[in-house]
Structure formats: structure tokens, C-alpha cells
């Protein structure tokens, strides 16, 4: 028995010659064109899949948020400046109304500015949905103050009315003044971006899914964690049927893959080529990745 170890063997040569003889050059050329074409399409598709979300990131990157914050802050400020409470006095009792009816025409103009300064009223013309919602919330918050305030006592003085006696439910300053100070403070500008973001960034499932796939492909754990909220479209595929898990497996990001799996990403969904994340992981053969996917102990 001879040793046929790593040394060349006539049988090896015979087999190589046989393969060369049976080789079909035309079929090989057709195969080459098909494979290289598929690889080129694949590369193009993956490039577009990864490059689309960064476009949005550019739009809403750090600079984008600062711009949004500035716009929201200015809008809020303008809205507050325009904010003028309507003259809405609570209805006096009928008995008092009759007394006031005789004297009021002479004194009402002198009393109204003070009353207007005290009593907040619903906003007149909100400048944006965001401002409207905030103003509405403020109005609702301040409603009890208006309702609880006692009606101004009938006064026959011609001088401007003095401040009403302090009430336990009346704020020390008018709601308008407080609101104006809040809006003018740096804190308001700091608060504005998040609210503006909530209002102006469309968090449609398609956009969320695209962001998720881009973060997965790049292995950005922090972004993935932020995006993987309950109900997030973790398995939403792109046009090629590629899911976030497939992308992170292809890019070999075990930590991102483990995170996606913990959020229920399906390992057996297949892309349009019929390849699943499990197949891709098997092709890569990285033990860390396999462990992250739960394919290896």
C-alpha cells in the first residue's frame, strides 16, 4: 500500500484532464455573463439600499435638527407675541348684571385692559399645527384658573382697576406672562426640537423600516436600539426582499444580529433570490455570528 498523501498523484492529473476535456467553453462564457451580471445588480441594489437612508440622515442630521429647533422656537415666539386674550368675562349674576348695566358703559373701557391682562383667553390664530397644539394644551391647563377666578367685582371707579385680591388658584402672574417667559427662555428652544420632530418627521412604517435596515447594515447599535420599539417593522424587506437581519448578517455584525433576533427578526425569511439570513450566516461561517443568531451554542 503506497502512501497517497499530499504528493501529486496520477489520479489527480487524470481527473483534471477529464474535467478539462469535458469543459464547455460556451457554457462557461454564458455562466460568466450571468454571474457577473447578477453580482453587479446585487452590488447596485445594496448600494442603493444603504445609501437611501443616509440621505434622510443628512436631511435630519445634527444640522437639520438645529434648523428645526430654530424654526420651531421662532414660530413659538411669534405665536406668543400674537397671543392676545380675548375679552371674555364670566357672566355675572343676573342681579349684579342689572346694576352693572347702568354704570358699565362709562367705566368698561377703563377697566378692560387690566381685565385683559389678567384673564387669559384661547389663542386667536395659531401659526402652525405644532403651536396650535401647544397653545391648546396651555389653554386647557389654564382653564381652571379662569373658571375658578371670581368675577371681577363691579366697580364704579374711573381709575384703572386695581389688581384683584389674590386667590389661592390664581397664579401670581398672568398665564400669558408666564407663557411668554417660557417661550423666550432657552429651555423653550431646547424643548422645541423634540416636539417639532414629533410633529414634522413622518414616522411611516416604510421610513422606519428603511432606517432600521440602514442601521442594521452599518451595525449601528445605538440607532438600532432606538428604532426597535414595540411594533417596529423588524422584518420589513426592501425591494430585493432583504430584511434588516439579512443585511446585518451579510455585513457580519454579530451584536446587531443578536439585537434584531431579540426583537423577533425572522431568520428564515427569504429574499428574492431565495436566500435567507440563515443561509447567509451559513455561508459566512463565523462562529460569533452563528452564536449571535442562535445557530450555535
Amino acid at each position: 500500500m503506497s502512501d497517497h498523501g499530499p504528493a501529486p498523484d496520477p489520479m489527480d492529473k487524470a481527473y483534471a484532464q477529464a474535467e478539462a476535456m469535458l469543459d464547455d467553453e460556451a457554457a462557461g462564457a454564458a455562466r460568466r455573463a450571468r454571474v457577473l451580471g447578477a453580482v453587479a445588480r446585487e452590488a447596485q441594489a445594496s448600494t442603493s439600499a444603504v445609501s437611501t437612508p443616509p440621505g434622510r440622515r443628512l436631511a435630519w442630521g445634527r444640522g437639520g435638527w438645529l434648523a428645526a429647533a430654530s424654526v420651531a422656537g421662532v414660530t413659538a415666539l411669534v405665536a406668543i407675541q400674537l397671543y392676545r386674550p380675548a375679552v371674555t368675562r364670566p357672566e355675572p349674576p343676573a342681579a349684579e348684571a342689572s346694576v352693572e348695566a347702568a354704570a358699565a358703559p362709562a367705566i368698561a373701557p377703563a377697566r378692560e385692559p387690566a381685565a385683559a391682562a389678567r384673564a387669559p383667553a384661547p389663542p386667536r390664530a395659531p401659526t402652525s399645527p405644532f403651536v396650535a397644539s401647544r397653545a391648546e394644551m396651555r389653554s386647557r391647563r389654564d382653564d381652571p384658573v379662569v373658571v375658578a377666578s371670581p368675577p371681577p367685582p363691579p366697580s364704579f371707579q374711573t381709575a384703572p382697576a386695581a389688581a384683584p385680591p389674590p386667590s389661592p388658584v390664581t397664579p401670581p402672574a398672568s398665564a400669558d406672562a408666564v407663557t411668554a417667559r417660557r417661550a423666550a427662555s432657552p429651555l423653550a428652544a431646547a424643548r422645541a426640537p423634540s416636539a417639532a420632530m414629533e410633529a414634522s418627521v413622518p414616522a411611516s412604517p416604510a421610513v422606519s423600516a428603511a432606517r432600521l435596515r440602514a442601521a442594521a447594515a452599518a451595525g449601528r447599535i445605538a440607532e438600532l436600539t432606538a428604532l426597535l420599539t414595540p411594533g417596529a417593522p423588524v422584518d420589513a424587506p426592501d425591494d430585493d426582499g432583504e430584511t434588516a437581519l439579512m443585511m446585518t448578517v451579510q455585513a457580519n455584525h454579530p451584536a446587531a444580529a443578536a439585537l434584531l433576533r431579540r426583537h423577533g427578526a425572522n431568520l428564515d425569511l427569504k429574499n428574492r433570490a431565495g436566500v435567507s439570513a440563515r443561509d447567509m450566516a451559513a455561508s459566512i461561517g463565523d462562529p460569533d455570528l452563528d452564536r449571535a443568531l442562535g445557530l450555535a451554542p
Partner: protein
Amino acid sequence: MQRLGLALMEDDAVEDADLLRAHGAGDPHAFARLYDRYERACFQFIRRLLGAAHGDAAEDLHQETWIAVSRNVAGFDPAKASFAAWLFTIARHKTFDHFRRQKIAVLSSATDSALGETAMMVPDPGQTPLEQVQSRERAEEIVAAVEALPLEQRGVFVMFAQGGLSLEEIAQITGVALETAKSRLRYARAKLRQSLAGERSAHV
């Protein structure tokens, strides 16, 4: 290392890893050069592993293999393995995945020992006309004999004889000890001799 059928690679000064990096950087020609170096060996490896019964899937698996290579450029570490070893690892996984999808039982290496010592007792014919492929018919006989080998032996033999991989690389690809890879190659050669000798005597 001798790499039969990959003469172009030896003549080419550009390393495989450099071509792969260039492909990852967007060079449209780098991948084609890499493909041309290994395409034939890779395809024949898949084709022979699949065997005659599943040969139709060879084209698809071959394409999937190269797409996987293209996708996972970042996953290739030249310090861990040669490109050829990495490529054959992917191709082997693709083929075995196909078997699993088709619910085809992959024969374990127990068949190595099932071959028994009888095959090993076949004398080495040396430089006889057996190894000289004289006709297409003879070439088909040899290929058919290779496809009749147990799966693991077949894989080792094709990777060594056609892919030009070293036994160390083959052991790494198949996840077995070096001695196991070596014995599989030995058994494969012995069984081929036995098989082809039988066919030759049948023809006579």
C-alpha cells in the same frame, strides 16, 4: 503551492485579497478578474459535490456563491485563510444548504471506514493509460467515478486535484483534522482506482 487550472492566478501579480478590496471599493473590473481565476474550479467543485442527480442546481449555487463573495467582502480576512479556501468554504456551505433544503441526507464520514481496506489494497497502477485521458468517453468515466465517491471524499479529492488547495486548507474548510482530510484523499484515490480498474476490465 500547486494550483491546477489556476495558472492565470500564478501569472498575475495582483493578490486575490487586493482584488477583493478593489471590488469592495467599487472597481468594476476587479471582481471579474477574481472570478476568472477561480470560476472553473469553483463550479466543478459544486457540480461534482452535487453529483449527477442534482447537477441542475449547480448553476444556481455557483451564482449564489459568487454573490455571497461579493456581499461579504468585509468578512474576508486574508490572515485567516486564503481567498480560495474562503471561496470553497462558501461553495461547500451553499451545496450542503441545498442538500438540506432538498432534504437530502448528507452522508457522514462514516462512509470513509465503510470503504474498507479492500480499496486500499488495489495496487497503484502508476503511469498507465488509465490516467491518460484519451477520449471523451474515458473522461466521462473518470468524472462519473468521482461523482460516485462518498460525499466527503469527493469534496476533498476535487478540492485537492482540481482546486489546488492544500490539505491544511481542506481540513480547515471541512472542519476536520488534517489527518482526516489526508485519509479521505487517500481513500478517494484508492476507490477511484478500484472503480476505474473495474470498468477497464469490463471493457476488455
